[in-house]
């Protein structure tokens, strides 16, 4: 009986509502709202379209930087390191030495220019022979072995002269070769020797003449000077003597009484020392710039409020992973992703919606779940032993996964929606400013613990409700330095 009545009731409504005779009249305002939705989605889809492209570009840049910084630091004997052994040359060729020197200078950058006459040739021989005889310290030996490499630079300027005693010619060129690893700005400057056999700074190209202290130290802008010897055997012997003495000592510069030695001497000085030193210094310099990549996990608890109204804060929690690159001594770039649980309470005045509430709620309880993707830069302000403190700033993007809003009404009998849920709709790109201070205690070379007080200041309204959501809290984390132990040899 009841069923029949129920069916009768259902039929009454079905007939009346299923196919209304007078359909609801079209309202232009409804279409306007529809158009707004469509236009808004266009903009959003444009952003969504660019996101993967931007992300891919960022990833490529990161990979490229990673490759640049992480590629192995192998000191390969480059062309500048090439020092050749003696090229046997016939005396008949001596007359061409100058030309050869020129051409070699052009190709190798070596200071090989030399006057092309037999006396010069002799000078070269003299210059070489003493070092061959006297400069056989352990350093010079190692230098010789270095210079004998297959692909090392041939110092033809002097070595084109075959010494009579068939001993390897170690001359200015060799010395230069040694200095080369540390020299990035080789300049060939002619140096003449005076009547006393002392080399003077560039008589020929006066302005550019420098003594080779820098070259001796293997610094970046060292300039090598060519010894342009005068035709005087005695003078050249003096040069040879000068060359010899440094070769036996560790002192980079050997002076000859009045004048500073030309670079040939300086370089001859270094054969045994410079290669190792230069390589070491290059290595240590690279180590200083070598970026440290670190992964981390963090968990934090924070207070969340709207418009700095922290009297209405709610406590939320976050956890996630971080990735950082220390690209300079004190500078670090970090990013990552954290899953944030951000509950908050706010007055309804701060809640923005197009929906017209029948009765205006007094407040809104919100519970937002989101992905926070920050990109921050940090500067180390304190570092002592295993402890360090950095300050950082950057921007965060919020990807709203779920937003639950509960509306509170002042009147218990008020009518209106109680809840509203938005799922995975809102994204706020780079809309939150991050400020943080991070204390790190390094447990060992690879692992460290961090304590990070932070605050997140909204730069624009976020979420469906378009509120200025602010968070302040403390994060705890563990960092793992991925490449901490991979030091260059």
């Amino acid at each position: 009986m009841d069923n029949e009545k129920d069916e009768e009731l259902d039929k009454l409504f079905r007939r009346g509502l299923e196919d209304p005779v007078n359909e609801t009249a079209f309202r232009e305002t409804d279409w306007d709202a529809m158009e707004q939705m469509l236009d808004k989605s266009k903009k959003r889809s444009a952003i969504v379209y660019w996101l993967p492209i931007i992300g891919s570009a960022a990833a490529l840049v990161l990979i490229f930087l990673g490759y640049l910084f992480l590629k192995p630091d192998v000191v390969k004997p480059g062309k500048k390191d090439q020092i050749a052994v003696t090229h046997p040359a016939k005396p008949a060729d001596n007359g061409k030495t100058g030309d050869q020197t020129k051409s070699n200078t052009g190709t190798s950058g070596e200071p090989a220019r030399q006057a092309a006459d037999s006396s010069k040739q002799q000078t070269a021989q003299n210059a070489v022979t003493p070092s061959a005889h006297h400069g056989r310290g352990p350093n010079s030996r190692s230098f010789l072995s270095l210079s004998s490499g297959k692909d090392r630079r041939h110092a033809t300027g002097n070595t084109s002269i075959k010494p009579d005693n068939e001993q390897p010619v170690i001359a200015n060129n060799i010395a230069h070769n040694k200095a080369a690893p540390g020299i990035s700005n080789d300049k060939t400057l002619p140096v003449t020797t005076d009547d006393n056999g002392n080399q003077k700074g560039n008589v020929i190209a006066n302005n550019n003449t420098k003594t080779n202290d820098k070259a001796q130290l293997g610094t970046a802008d060292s300039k090598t000077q060519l010894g342009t010897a005068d035709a005087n055997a005695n003078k050249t012997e003096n040069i040879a003597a000068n060359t010899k003495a440094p070769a036996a000592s560790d002192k980079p510069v050997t002076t000859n009484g009045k004048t500073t030695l030309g670079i040939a001497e300086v370089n001859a000085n270094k054969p045994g020392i410079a290669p190792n030193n230069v390589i070491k210094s290059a290595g240590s310099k690279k180590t200083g710039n070598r970026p440290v990549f670190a992964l981390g996990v963090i968990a934090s608890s924070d207070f969340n409020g709207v418009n700095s109204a922290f009297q209405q804060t709610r406590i939320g929690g976050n956890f996630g992973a971080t990735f950082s690159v220390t690209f300079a001594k004190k500078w670090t770039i970090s990013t990552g992703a954290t899953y944030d649980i951000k509950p908050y309470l706010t007055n309804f005045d701060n809640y923005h919606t197009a929906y017209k509430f029948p009765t205006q709620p007094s407040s809104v309880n919100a519970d937002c779940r989101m992905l926070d993707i920050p990109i921050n830069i940090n500067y180390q302000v304190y570092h002592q032993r295993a402890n360090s403190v950095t300050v950082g700033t950057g921007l965060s993007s919020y990807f709203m996964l779920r937003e639950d809003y509960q509306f509170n009404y002042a009147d218990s009998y008020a009518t209106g929606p109680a809840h509203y849920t938005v799922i995975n709709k809102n994204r706020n790109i780079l809309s939150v400013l991050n400020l943080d201070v991070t204390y790190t205690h390094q447990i060992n070379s690879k692992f460290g613990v961090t304590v990070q007080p932070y605050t997140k200041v909204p730069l624009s309204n976020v979420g469906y409700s378009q509120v200025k959501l602010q968070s302040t809290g403390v994060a705890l984390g563990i960092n793992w330095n991925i490449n901490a132990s991979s030091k260059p040899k």
Partner: protein
Amino acid sequence: MGEEELHQLIGGCIRKERGSQKMLYKAFYGFSMGICLRYANNRDEAAEVMNQGFFKVFTRIETYDTSRPFKAWLGRIMMNVSIDYYRANLKMAYAEDLDKAENMSNDELPDQKLNYEDLLAMVQKLPNAYRTVFNLYAIDGYTHEEIGELLNISSGTSKSNLHKARQKLKQMILEADGKSNNSNYNKGMDYSPSVAISKTDLHGAFFRKNI
């Protein structure tokens, strides 16, 4: 609207032509609004829900199978967005209504002719949870099991809500009849025009329903 014209409009919508979108919107405005109004509290809400439905239509029009009736596809979308819009409220129990509903008499329905607006007004006055179940069962023809799946409630809750909805509608019809007889339509009616919400009720509902 002929089939060919409809397909042309759909083609224009696929190409994101705003003109075609507007024409389709206007063509099916009444039909869509008719569905959304049944599930909504009022016309403004219905228009908002309907626009959400059309938004889905325009953004997913490529998925429409042209071999099937467009109206059925559109109607299903409108129904789904309507359910989604009020989903948060659908699990709520309305304790204050239960007693009144249980005390309804089993009087015969008055032999009164009610027009579309009258019936729509009555349905819209039902609480969301009752209205949704009533719409799905009585008008759209779903079973309680299907409704349970759609709304993520048990079929028992669906039956219960349907029963309460019917009771309230009967009460409204009787009242309407009384009004027409006595020109005193709303006398004695004490139901909420929409969902009554209070903090205490909410908490109670949450704890009872474990949500």
